[in-house]
């Protein structure tokens, strides 16, 4: 165990440099499972720990990451009328997507983990794994063109106010990743709404608008692709084509119902996710694959997912029955073709810390998220999508739901004593 000995040798002193020691401890326990043995209580312990739990959630999102980075490029080139097939010009799309995604990922983690480490050192406890998942989720729910400074502020806000102020991992009331998103949404309402934000690299989605490629595309990727034998390159002279809108299916549905949506996007296009939107939210089958991993491993609650689906379906049916606006008349099952319902269901609502903690409570909690989220989506023109607000809203109510579930349990026991 040469590596282990080397690592043990460079361990910083805990008293002299607490921050360095925390940092070291974080990375050391990442590389080596510690040699701690049980003391008192059970003599053997389950193989699972928080690191493993968290990393499985991160793994479940990897397909979304892969698809999201290609889709950033795909939407960009669609606006220019180039490479209309999803796999055409794949190298360009991937390169374009990664150039957008990697800075978002890096900034999220630098800011978020930096704050985590600092707090861990200050409080003198080990680095907790909570931000592994939050940090992986935040890039996926951001628009691809999000300014990095805003992102940094949003992450800092979410981690400090949303989590550390309450005592760290396991203590927060609101979903950290959604707090970062909601910060962006409410802090920069004029620049972050509208049709243009969902497609990267366009100042305005108007016909004839120029695209500005930075030096990294023309100076690095073009020569690289040339040397690799590709025949298509980033073209700085390309312009946005006529008739392009960049509108998401939801805003189209709001304007003119399902027919208006299908004029622009086909059903399979929406289902597979080649549409504008936040980075990781668009591809329904890949998100459902992730949800499948979470349910099969038992990491996320199927109760929340199922009841949230039922809640959204019931509300959509009620809206169908009401049928007052074009959006309300969108058949209830097509509501699931649009927007980020599945992403919110699989990865956001199921966060165990902020969700209801009793099994019965989870069913109520999920149902109400689906119910309320669909109301916000369809009835409120100010918000492009309902799930972010619905989940944060129900996060606040989760303890209340649990309170009543526990109360019922206590009453049952009390009745038994009195019987």
């Amino acid at each position: 165990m040469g590596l282990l000995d080397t690592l043990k040798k460079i361990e910083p002193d805990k008293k002299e440099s607490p921050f360095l020691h925390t940092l070291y401890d974080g990375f050391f326990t990442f590389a080596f499972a510690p040699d701690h043995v049980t003391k008192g209580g059970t003599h053997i312990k389950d193989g699972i720990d928080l690191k493993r739990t968290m990393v499985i959630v991160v793994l479940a999102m990897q397909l979304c990451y892969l698809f999201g980075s290609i889709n950033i490029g795909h939407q960009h080139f669609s606006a220019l009328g180039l490479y209309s097939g999803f796999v055409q010009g794949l190298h360009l799309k991937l390169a374009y997507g990664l150039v957008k995604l990697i800075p978002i990922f890096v900034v999220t983690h630098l800011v978020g983990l930096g704050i985590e480490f600092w707090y861990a050192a200050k409080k003198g406890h080990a680095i907790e794994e909570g931000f592994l998942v939050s940090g992986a989720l935040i890039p996926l729910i951001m628009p691809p063109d999000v300014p990095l400074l805003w992102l940094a502020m949003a992450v800092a806000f979410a981690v400090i106010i949303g989590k550390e102020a309450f005592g760290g991992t396991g203590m927060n009331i609101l979903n950290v990743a959604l707090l970062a998103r909601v910060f962006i949404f409410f802090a920069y309402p004029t620049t972050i709404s509208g049709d243009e934000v969902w497609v990267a690299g366009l100042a305005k989605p108007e016909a004839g608008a120029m695209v500005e490629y930075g030096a990294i595309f023309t100076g690095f990727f073009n020569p690289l692709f040339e040397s690799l034998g590709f025949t298509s390159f980033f073209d700085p002279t390309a312009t946005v084509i006529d008739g392009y809108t960049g509108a998401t299916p939801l805003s189209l549905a709001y304007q003119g119902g399902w027919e208006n949506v299908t004029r622009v996007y086909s059903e399979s296009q929406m289902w597979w996710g080649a549409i504008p939107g936040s980075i990781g939210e668009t591809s329904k089958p890949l998100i459902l694959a992730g949800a499948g991993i979470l349910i099969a491993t038992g990491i996320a609650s199927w109760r929340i997912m199922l009841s949230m689906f039922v809640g959204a379906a019931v509300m959509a049916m009620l809206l169908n029955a009401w049928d007052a606006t074009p959006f309300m008349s969108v058949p209830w099952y097509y509501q699931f073709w649009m927007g980020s319902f599945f992403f919110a269901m699989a990865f956001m609502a199921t966060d165990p810390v902020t969700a209801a903690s009793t099994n019965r409570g989870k069913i109520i909690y999920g149902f109400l998220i689906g119910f309320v989220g669909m109301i916000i989506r369809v009835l409120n023109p100010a918000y492009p999508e309902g799930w972010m607000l619905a989940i944060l809203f129900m996060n606040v109510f989760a303890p209340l739901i649990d309170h009543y579930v526990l109360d019922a349990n206590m009453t049952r026991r009390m009745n038994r004593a009195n019987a």
Partner: protein
Amino acid sequence: MKNNILYTFLVALFLFSSNTAFAADSGSGSNILNLSLWGLAILVIFFLIIQVSDNLIRIEAKESGLDNKSQASVSLFPSFSNMFSAKKPSYVKEGSFYALKAGHDIALEGIAAKVVNAGAATTYAIQPQNFVGISPIPKVTVAVGDEVKAGDVVCFDKKRPNIKYVAPVSGEVIAVNRGAKRSIKEVVILADKEINYKSFPTLDLANTSREALVNHLLESGAWTMINQRPFGIIPDATDVPKAVFISTFDSAPLAPDLNFVVAGQGAAFQKGLDVLGMLTEGSVHLGLDARGTDAPSTVFTDATGVEKHWFHGKHPVGNVGIQIHHVSPIAGDDKVWTLGVQEVITIGKLFTEGKFDASRIIAVTGAEASTPAYVSTYLGANIGALAGTVGDNVRLVSGDVLSGVQKSKEEFLDFRDDQITTIKEGNEYEMFGWLAPMDARPSVSQTFLSGLVDVTYEANTNTHGEKRAFVVTGQYEKVLPMDIYPQHLMKAIIVNDFERMDGLGINELLEEDVALCEFACTSKQPLQSILREGLEIMREQA
């Protein structure tokens, strides 16, 4: 009731969806569509009528007392739990049957072979600290060098001098060892080759009052066999239990097969049951094993004067606490007595043979034991001698790996334990051990591929992770087949909320019941010690 609401809801949902899905077409006056909707509406009305009458039947049944769990359901509909739960085995002829879903069996290597070897222990000890609530320095009535017979008083608690703790074997007292703060840790007896028993009169149960019976048990030391819930204490002489519960099987990892242990002890076991039957105002309940393909020992199935309850499920289904919860939960100021099978036999032999016979058959188990097998010995035997030769980096546990106590070779089996587990220490670093472990390890979570196949694990004592705040929810409920919210109960204990602790059912639990939750805990929280803290607070309040 719950099912009804669910059924109605589903039907309403179906009707709604079909209405709305076809709403666009109904304007065109499609006859088939209209007819089918009408048909559906008639069906629903018909269904609702049946529902209402079903509810009325159930209410009537409840009022006339027919609605007993052990009886067939009076409802017109099969309940969901009946449809999907395990089928009753054919050998279950009398008594009620419970199929529990929550739980988890941990398959470890080193199950004891079905042979009984003579135990090699020569020293035995009474350890006052085995008993909850005893004062740290009880009055020891023997001195080093004294000769004692099996059944002679060794010590008693100054707070409750009528409860006598007696010698399990005859021989010479060779040590009175003290622990922290001069507390009495153990009174050690070097056993004679041939055990001499103090002789007690064999009472005729028919002509004995309850008071005389209690006094006899107190005098002979057999009273200490009784464990009282809540809190897991030895009862006061004045306590009258609501019921007595005996679990006749142990579902813990590598637990001894009690069917094998009791072979040939039928008469003593039955006598013990008769005695206990006289001590309770309710009845003696026997929890029987309905997990296997074969019926349990006739010692259990032929027992008379008891109520029998059959249990099917995974660990902790064999824990008496779980069985009590399903048969007759502890509520209010209820007191329930529980005993192990071999403890019942000890009480029985006091009446059949007139002696305090604390002989025990112990299972020596675990992957590190040289010969995992049963050994015959006496209560409180020296662990090192029974376990035989074990390697250096091995932990000896009195009891099972979940709720047992770590012991050194020089120490002794705890009072109520009938198992020794040997297990390798896991004091090694492992590269990326949390992500890609080198060896298969038991887990309740479904995140390990080895969970998909039947494997027996050679587990070690590594914690497999560090302690964290409570993060994951719903995990404990998966392995605790009780109507209890363990995580919320633990949080109530941590913040000292008496009302909640009581309301959420702390009195129904002992450490062994939450041990599997502690094993499964992702955050590695010490649930058993948290629970004990809470129980101690409640005991002081009571």
